[in-house]
């Protein structure tokens, strides 16, 4: 495409109170050779947009540099069709609202003006390096969903997808559907008013699944292998022997109770000490008995048995309190004189289950106390439970016929010997795990997302939850699976760059088979052949650019995002002479967190340092060390990276991007050493939305600038 570049400057929103827009126009036309450059006092208005549309129609402008607000605003307004390119130089936020305004006589501040002009240079340079995305389209997209696991979550996912008109293959390893919850005697009510227990309704879900013509059930079956990519997975099933295509996958393999044999401090080795699972099974079979066959007259439920305990499960499973409250009613129904004691650390009945808690608590024969269980002993046929720090104001001992340990949930995937998906992926056959063994990409913000595109975890395999929560979770995962299928069919990326048409494209002629991209891709999107040559599975790509940052040969690019493009932006920055004493610092900022932080600061009109030039990256994972040498060799004094928190509780949208950037910068000395510069000139900082305010980010920047002063100006200035 022959590019005809138009630069459109908005002088509204107080932009002209800080910037002399005529100066910017001169840079655009004289220096950067833009074919058209226009200023409008209200660019996003109908009239302003019409100016641009007229130029598109009459002048043939097809590449628009919008020098106005941040790219996070008015995305739909500044869209001129699939045959045009738009880049957004956010001079409102990065210049007009955060740097010095004109003085009282109306004269612009020199530094502010320089920054504005630099952004015109950078974004005209950028648009020169961008191409119109050409989508990756499968020959045919399979629109069926594979669900792994036939419990409540799996069945609900299957039903929800089927109801939405999608075919489903449901694979269950046991000989019947129902899963763990099928073994419950009664259940916590699924809807208001949440009072008392309700009969087990899992059988209803099973018959609904069995009666649904869109769902093919494979019982006594496991997954032999899965290969391919969203829209085109090839699934082989061991057991039913079936082989079929799938568009997306829901992993609903469930959880198991925590291994009670580790809880000897709670008497797990004693005769009449059992788990809530064992108790439930007894209740289901119709007879709750002690070891010697007696009906228990008193039962103690010990909550948090191995949960919220740094030596066992450090987390709260959020269901054990509900289970014990439910099971207490079994005892009370069985014998109106029997007593149920519940000893808890914290009674946790999330959300409206508070009403269930209240209803169970109302029973005069249910005795609750907060307390720490200090010993569980066998005492002549009874079990003595010592409880310290009780609400009764003293340390107590309860002698019970039966003790039930309310154990927490552990995802089935925690056992590394078991296989569930058997993915034929270069990065391994199963889902990557996070803390506590749960397969999850982002616990807090994006619950359904995983690090395997098109594969969504649902139910207790994803997070410990109760049956009703698992149903909601499963419905969500089914919708994510459908969304993935439909977006893949259109050639679009899924979360977090939803709708992006670009994907990683390596120039294999210059590839050295170093395997860095196949290893570092946070989503396992790139397979490889025996030699180590990458075999990208483009529908698995999330377009974060981590591979682009990793590639030492710099051969990976995206249609509108590439190393040359970013290098040109760096080189477009005007470097003042050393004697001007105007340092220049380049800041790469993460589009997902750091950029919104800057926008927030702009809204607050926080005064920022005028010597910084910001370049947004899709993810800091896209940082290639060549950017550092590019920047330092043109005389930029320092380089900052502002990105998400990394580590165990990372906030990176692409899971590993900010961590990988940090790792790469650990080796920056090699690059900088060649230039005989100090490695301290390059630093990475963690910035989150909480840092949007006058204290944190300006201080990070000021401290960095102060440190730079010690090293003096970059000696490469002027070369």
């Amino acid at each position, binding site marked *: 495409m022959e590019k005809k570049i138009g630069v459109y400057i908005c002088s509204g929103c107080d932009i002209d109170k800080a910037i002399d827009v005529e100066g910017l126009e001169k840079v655009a036309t004289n220096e950067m050779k833009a074919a058209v450059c226009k200023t409008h006092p209200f660019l996003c208005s109908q009239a302003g947009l019409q100016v641009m549309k007229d130029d598109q129609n009459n002048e043939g402008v097809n590449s628009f540099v919008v020098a106005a607000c941040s790219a996070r605003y008015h995305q739909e307004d500044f869209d001129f069709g699939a045959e045009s390119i738009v880049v957004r130089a956010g001079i409102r936020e990065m210049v007009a609202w955060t740097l010095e305004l004109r003085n009282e006589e109306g004269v612009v501040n020199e530094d502010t003006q320089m920054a504005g002009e630099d952004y015109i240079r950078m974004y005209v340079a950028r648009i020169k390096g961008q191409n119109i995305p050409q989508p990756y389209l499968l020959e045919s997209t399979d629109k069926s969903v594979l669900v792994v696991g036939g419990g409540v979550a799996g069945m609900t996912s299957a039903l929800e997808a089927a109801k939405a008109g999608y075919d489903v293959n449901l694979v269950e390893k046991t000989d019947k559907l129902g899963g763990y919850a099928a073994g419950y005697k009664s259940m916590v009510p699924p809807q208001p008013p949440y009072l008392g227990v309700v009969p087990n309704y899992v059988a209803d879900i099973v018959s609904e699944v069995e009666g649904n013509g869109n769902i093919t059930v494979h019982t006594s079956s496991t997954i032999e292998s899965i290969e391919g990519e969203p829209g085109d997975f090839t699934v082989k099933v061991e057991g039913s022997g079936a082989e079929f295509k799938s568009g997306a996958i829901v992993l609903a393999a469930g959880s198991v109770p925590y291994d009670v044999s580790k809880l000897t401090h709670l008497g797990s080795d004693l005769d009449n000490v059992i788990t809530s699972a064992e108790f439930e099974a007894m209740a289901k079979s119709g007879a709750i008995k002690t070891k010697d066959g007696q009906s228990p007259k008193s039962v103690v439920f010990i909550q948090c048995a191995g949960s919220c305990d740094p030596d066992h499960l450090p987390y709260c499973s959020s269901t054990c309190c509900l289970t014990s409250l439910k099971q207490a009613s079994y005892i009370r129904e069985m014998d109106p004189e029997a007593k149920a004691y519940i000893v808890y650390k914290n009674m946790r009945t999330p959300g409206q289950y508070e009403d269930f808690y209240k209803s169970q608590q*109302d029973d*005069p024969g249910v*005795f609750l106390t907060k307390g720490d269980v200090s010993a569980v002993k066998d005492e002549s046929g009874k079990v003595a439970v010592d409880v310290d720090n009780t609400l*009764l104001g*003293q340390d*107590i*001992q*309860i002698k019970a016929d039966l003790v039930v340990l309310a154990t927490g949930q552990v995802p089935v995937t925690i056992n590394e010997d078991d296989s569930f998906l058997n993915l034929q992926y270069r990065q391994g056959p199963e889902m990557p795990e996070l803390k506590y063994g749960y397969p999850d990409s982002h616990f807090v913000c994006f619950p359904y997302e995983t690090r395997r595109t098109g594969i969504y975890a649902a139910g207790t395999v994803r997070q410990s939850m109760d049956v009703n929560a698992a149903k909601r979770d499963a419905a969500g995962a089914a919708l994510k699976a459908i969304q993935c299928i439909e977006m893949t069919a259109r050639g679009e990326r899924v979360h977090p760059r939803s709708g992006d048409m670009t994907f990683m494209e390596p120039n294999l002629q210059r590839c050295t088979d170093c395997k860095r991209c196949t290893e570092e891709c946070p989503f396992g999107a790139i397979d490889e052949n025996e030699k180590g040559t990458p075999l990208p599975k483009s529908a698995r790509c999330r377009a974060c650019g981590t591979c682009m940052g990793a590639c030492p040969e710099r051969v990976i690019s995206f249609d509108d995002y590439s190393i040359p493009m970013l290098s040109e932006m760096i080189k477009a920055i005007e470097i003042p002479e050393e004697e001007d004493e105007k340092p220049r610092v380049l800041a790469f900022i993460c589009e997902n967190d750091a950029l919104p932080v800057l926008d927030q600061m702009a809204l607050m009109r926080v005064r920022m340092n005028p010597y910084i030039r910001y370049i947004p990256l899709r993810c800091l994972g896209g940082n290639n060390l060549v950017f550092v040498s590019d920047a330092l060799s043109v005389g930029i004094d320092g380089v900052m990276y502002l990105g998400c928190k990394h580590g165990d509780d990372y906030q990176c949208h692409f899971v590993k991007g900010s961590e990988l950037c940090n790792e790469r910068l650990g080796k920056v000395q090699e690059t900088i050493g060649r230039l005989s510069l100090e490695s301290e000139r390059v630093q990475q900082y963690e910035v989150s939305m909480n840092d949007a305010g006058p204290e944190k980010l300006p201080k990070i920047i000021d401290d960095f600038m102060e440190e730079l002063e010690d090293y003096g100006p970059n000696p490469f200035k002027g070369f």
Partner: protein
Amino acid sequence: MSDRVILDADLKFVQGVIKAGGQDLKKCYQCSTCTVVCPLTPEGTPFPRKEMINAQWGIKDKLITSMDPWLCFHCNDCSEQCPREAKPGDVMAAIRNMIIANVAVPSFLGKLTQSIGGSLLLLLFPIILLGAVILGINGGELAFLDKPVIVFHPNMISIPVIEIVFIPAFFFGIITGLLGIKRLINGLSKNYPKTEDGEPLVSALIGTVKDVLSHSKFRECGVNANRNVAHMLLFYSFIGLLITTAGVTSIYYINKIAGATVVTPTPLPFFHPIKIIGNVSALAASIGILLILGRRLFSEKIGQTVAFDWIFILNIALIVATGILAQTSRVAGSQVAYFIYYCHLVFVFFLFAYMPHSKFGHMFYRATALVYARYSGREKSVGMNFLEGKQQELPEETKEVA
């Protein structure tokens, strides 16, 4: 381990407390808002949070030997503020009922008075006894009905006969009451040994009498602040009626001993001082009991009213009503007056004989506990009321700053 106690929750006791008025007891989740808002609780080991869990678990021994239920005046500040609507105020009242049922001597009376059925059974005794006595002394006939002027004594029953019946009944009440007090103190002394904050017994007694006469504790209540008015009316009218009874009896014996009418005999004229005291007391009692009835029937803030409460309230109400009606019907010359007076005697007998077993027993036990509280040193009231309009008076200096 030495401090560890073996607990066996007493389901029956829990059910008992629920039945005795603590129906929302199990709703408590131990947040302790109640103890914070209570205007009456002492600072150390405050109530009613601990009573709530002890009652939930049915820790009978602890509860029936506890002083704290008696330091509670059922203001219901706690019930008003309770986020779970567990109504600690009602639970404390229920615990008091349970204490009466457990310390009353003989025990079976304490149990019978808890229910309507039991109380009706107990009521049969004075009905039969007084009926038999009246018939007996009148030769099995109701001939007095035909006498032209209606006079209760000696037409229907003579004063000595009344005394022969009522003095033993009264002393039965007092003696069993004292035995109950002894049981109560036994429990209290175990739980609350005398501390250095304690007052000498005499001072504790005087202090308590002052508190009772002034209703000072009652007045600290927030939610049911004006509840002390009705109680005060009843309290003082009972004293008035006691004076009236003593007066009438004295007149009778003075004349008897003198062998002539030295002082005005009964029925007394309307403006006789003793008659005035009696009638004013009767009026005050009627207002008091009407206030209580009204509030028990129509106010939600007053809390739960169970059989045990109703029996006592109705007993008083019936005594007052029959007392007034007996006099008015007598003056009006209606023969019904005799029957009403008979009923009046039956209800008075019920009140006296079952004093320590019915809710009237609070007179013994609360008074004892209040004295013991001062004596043992548990009488360190926080004296703060967190509810609106009842804020503690600020010191002058603080006020200026504010």
